[in-house]
C-alpha cells in the first residue's frame, strides 16, 4: 500500500470557469451507455434485415416504376420508413427507461451523496437528466437514422449496379431530402409531444422509493379503471391515447394520405407538403403538455432536494 501522503505543493487552484450542466449531461452519457448502444444495435439489426432482403429491392423498384408518382415515392420510401421506425421507437423506449431509473438509482446506490457534495444544484441535475431524452437521445437517434439510411442507399446502389437496373429509380424516384426533413419534423414534434411523459417518469423516479415503474403506470391504470366502472366514461383512456398517438394526427394531414388506413401503425412517409406544423404548434395539447413537463420537472427537483438522502 502506497501512502497518499506526499510533499505535494500547496493547493494553488484559483477559481476557474466550470460548466456544471454540460458536464452533468456528459456524465449521464458515461453512465448510461445504452443511450448510444441501443439505437446503434437496432440500426445494425435493420441493416442486416435490409441486406438479407436485398434481392427484393429490384422487384420493389420494378413495381414502383409502374405506379403514379405519389404512390411510387411511397413504395420506394417504404423500406426506409420501416428502417426509421424501430430506431425511433428504440429511442422512445430507451428514454422512458432512462427517466424511470435516472433519479432513483442514485438514491439506491447512495451515490447521490457524492453528487450532492459537489457544487451542482438539484435544478441543474434534473435539467441535465431531462436533456437526455429531450436532446441527447434524439440527436443520437437522428444521427443513427441518417447513417443507416445512407448505408441502405449505398448498399442498394451497389446491389442494383451489380444486377444492372434500378439505380436511377432508387435515387430519383422519391424525394429523399423531403423524406429526411419529414423525419426531422417527426422527431422534433415527437420529442415535444412526449416531453410530459419523460418528465412524469423523472418525477416518479425522484419520488418513489421502490417499484418506480409501477408507480409511474399504475395510477393512470387505476384512474382508467375507476372512471370506467364508476362513471362509464373514458376520459382518462382517451387522454392516454391522445398523448401516445395524438402527435401523428396533429403532425400530418392524414386525409391526403392515400393508401394507409391504419395511421397508428404506419406513419409518415408522405412528402413535406402534407405536414401541418401550424396545427401541431397551435394545438392546446402541445402547450398543456409542455406546461405539465415544467411542473413535473419542478416537482422532481423538489423531491430530489427534500428527500432524505440517507
Amino acid at each position, binding site marked *: *500500500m*502506497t*501512502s*497518499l*501522503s*506526499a510533499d*505535494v*505543493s500547496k*493547493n*494553488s*487552484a484559483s*477559481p*476557474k*470557469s*466550470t*460548466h*456544471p450542466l*454540460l*458536464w*452533468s449531461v*456528459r*456524465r449521464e452519457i*458515461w*453512465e448510461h451507455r445504452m443511450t448510444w448502444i441501443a439505437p446503434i444495435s437496432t440500426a445494425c439489426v435493420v441493416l442486416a434485415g435490409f441486406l438479407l432482403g436485398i434481392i427484393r429491392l429490384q422487384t420493389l423498384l420494378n413495381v414502383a416504376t409502374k405506379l403514379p408518382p405519389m404512390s411510387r415515392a411511397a413504395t420506394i420510401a417504404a423500406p426506409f420508413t420501416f428502417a426509421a421506425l424501430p430506431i425511433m421507437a428504440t429511442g422512445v423506449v430507451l428514454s422512458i427507461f432512462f427517466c424511470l431509473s435516472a433519479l432513483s438509482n*442514485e438514491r439506491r*446506490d*447512495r*451515490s*447521490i*451523496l*457524492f*453528487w*450532492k*457534495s*459537489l*457544487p*451542482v*444544484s*438539484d435544478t*441543474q441535475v434534473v435539467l441535465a437528466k431531462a436533456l437526455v431524452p429531450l436532446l441527447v437521445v434524439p440527436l443520437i437517434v437522428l444521427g443513427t437514422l441518417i447513417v443507416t439510411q445512407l448505408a441502405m442507399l449505398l448498399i442498394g446502389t451497389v446491389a442494383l449496379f451489380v444486377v444492372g437496373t434500378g439505380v436511377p429509380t432508387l435515387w430519383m424516384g422519391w424525394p429523399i431530402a423531403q423524406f429526411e426533413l419529414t423525419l426531422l419534423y417527426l422527431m422534433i414534434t415527437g420529442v415535444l409531444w412526449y416531453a410530459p411523459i419523460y418528465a412524469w417518469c423523472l418525477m416518479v423516479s425522484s419520488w418513489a422509493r421502490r417499484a418506480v415503474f409501477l408507480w409511474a403506470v399504475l395510477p393512470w391504470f387505476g384512474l382508467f379503471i375507476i372512471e370506467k366502472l364508476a362513471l362509464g366514461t373514458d376520459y382518462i383512456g382517451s387522454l392516454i391515447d391522445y398523448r401516445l398517438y395524438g402527435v401523428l394526427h396533429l403532425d400530418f394531414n392524414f386525409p391526403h394520405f392515400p393508401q394507409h388506413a391504419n395511421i397508428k401503425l404506419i406513419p409518415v412517409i408522405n412528402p413535406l407538403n402534407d405536414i401541418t406544423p401550424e396545427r401541431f404548434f397551435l394545438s392546446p395539447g402541445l402547450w398543456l403538455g409542455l406546461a405539465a413537463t415544467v411542473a413535473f420537472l419542478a416537482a422532481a427537483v423538489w423531491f430530489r432536494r*427534500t428527500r*432524505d*438522502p*440517507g
Partner: protein
Amino acid sequence: MACIEARGLKKTFGTTTALAGIDFKIEEGKIVGLIGPNGAGKSTLLNTVLGLIPYEGQLSVLGLNPWSSRGALMRDVCFIADVAVLPRWMRVQNAIDYVAGVHPKFDRERAEQLLAKTQIKKSSKISELSKGMVTQLHLALVMAIDAKLLVLDEPTLGLDVLFRKQFYDTLLNDYFDHRRTIVVTTHQVEEVEQILTDVMFINQGRIVLDCAMDDFETRYVELRPRPEHLVHARTLNPIHERQALGRLVLTFDSMNRDTLAALGEVRTPSIADVFVAIMSEPTTGDAA
C-alpha cells in the same frame, strides 16, 4: 467569523425528535469530533449543515443558509459520507474529469499527483477498486479541492487499520492548514482523538458536551482511589463509576487534581472513557 453557527437548530421526523433545538458554534481552523451513540442525531446534524435536509431554527455555514444556498455552499464545503458513495460505474478518469468540470476550486494536477502515489489506475472502474482504494480516491478528489470546510461522516467505516491510520495521517499532514475546518464523526474515537482540537458529544438530539481538547484534558480526571479513601472520594461527586481490572475508577468533572491525587492514582481519561461516563449519566442536562 464562525465556520458553523447554530441557534435553536431543530429537526423532527414525524414524532421523532432528531435534533432538539441545539446551539453551538464551530470556529474556523478547528478539527471537531462529533461523537455520539447510534441514533443520537450526528448524521442529521451533518445533513442540516450540508444543506441536505430542511430544519427549524437558525443555521449559518460559512455565512450562508445551507438549505437555501446548497449549490453555492458546496464550492467551499466538501464531504465524504462514507466509503461506498462514489458511483460504482464510473472510471477513475471520469471522476477526475467530472469534478474538474463542475468544481471551480478543483486542482486536477494535485489530484493526479495524489493518485500517482497510490496503486489506483486511472482506467479502472470504481467497482473494481478495493474499499480502501475507493477511500483513497475520494480523499484525493477532496484534497484537491481548495475548500474551507470538510465534513467527514464515518469516513473510515469498514476499512482495515492500515488504511484508517493512513487516512487521518494524510488528512493532517497534507490537508489541514489551520485555516480549514474539519468536522468528523466516527465510532473509532481513539483513532481521531490525537488530531482533534475540539470535541462535541451528542445524545438524543442534544449537545451534552462541547469542549476544546485543551480544556478537556484539564477538566476531566480519572481516579483509582486507594480502598481506604473510596468513601471520601465518592462524596466529591464523581460523574461516573466503573470497574477496571478489579479496581474501581471514578471519573470527575472540573475537580482539582491535587485534591484527588491525595486519594489515589490520577490520570487523564480518554475521550471514550468520558463519553461512556457522560452517556451513562441518568440526566440529559446540558453539561457544556
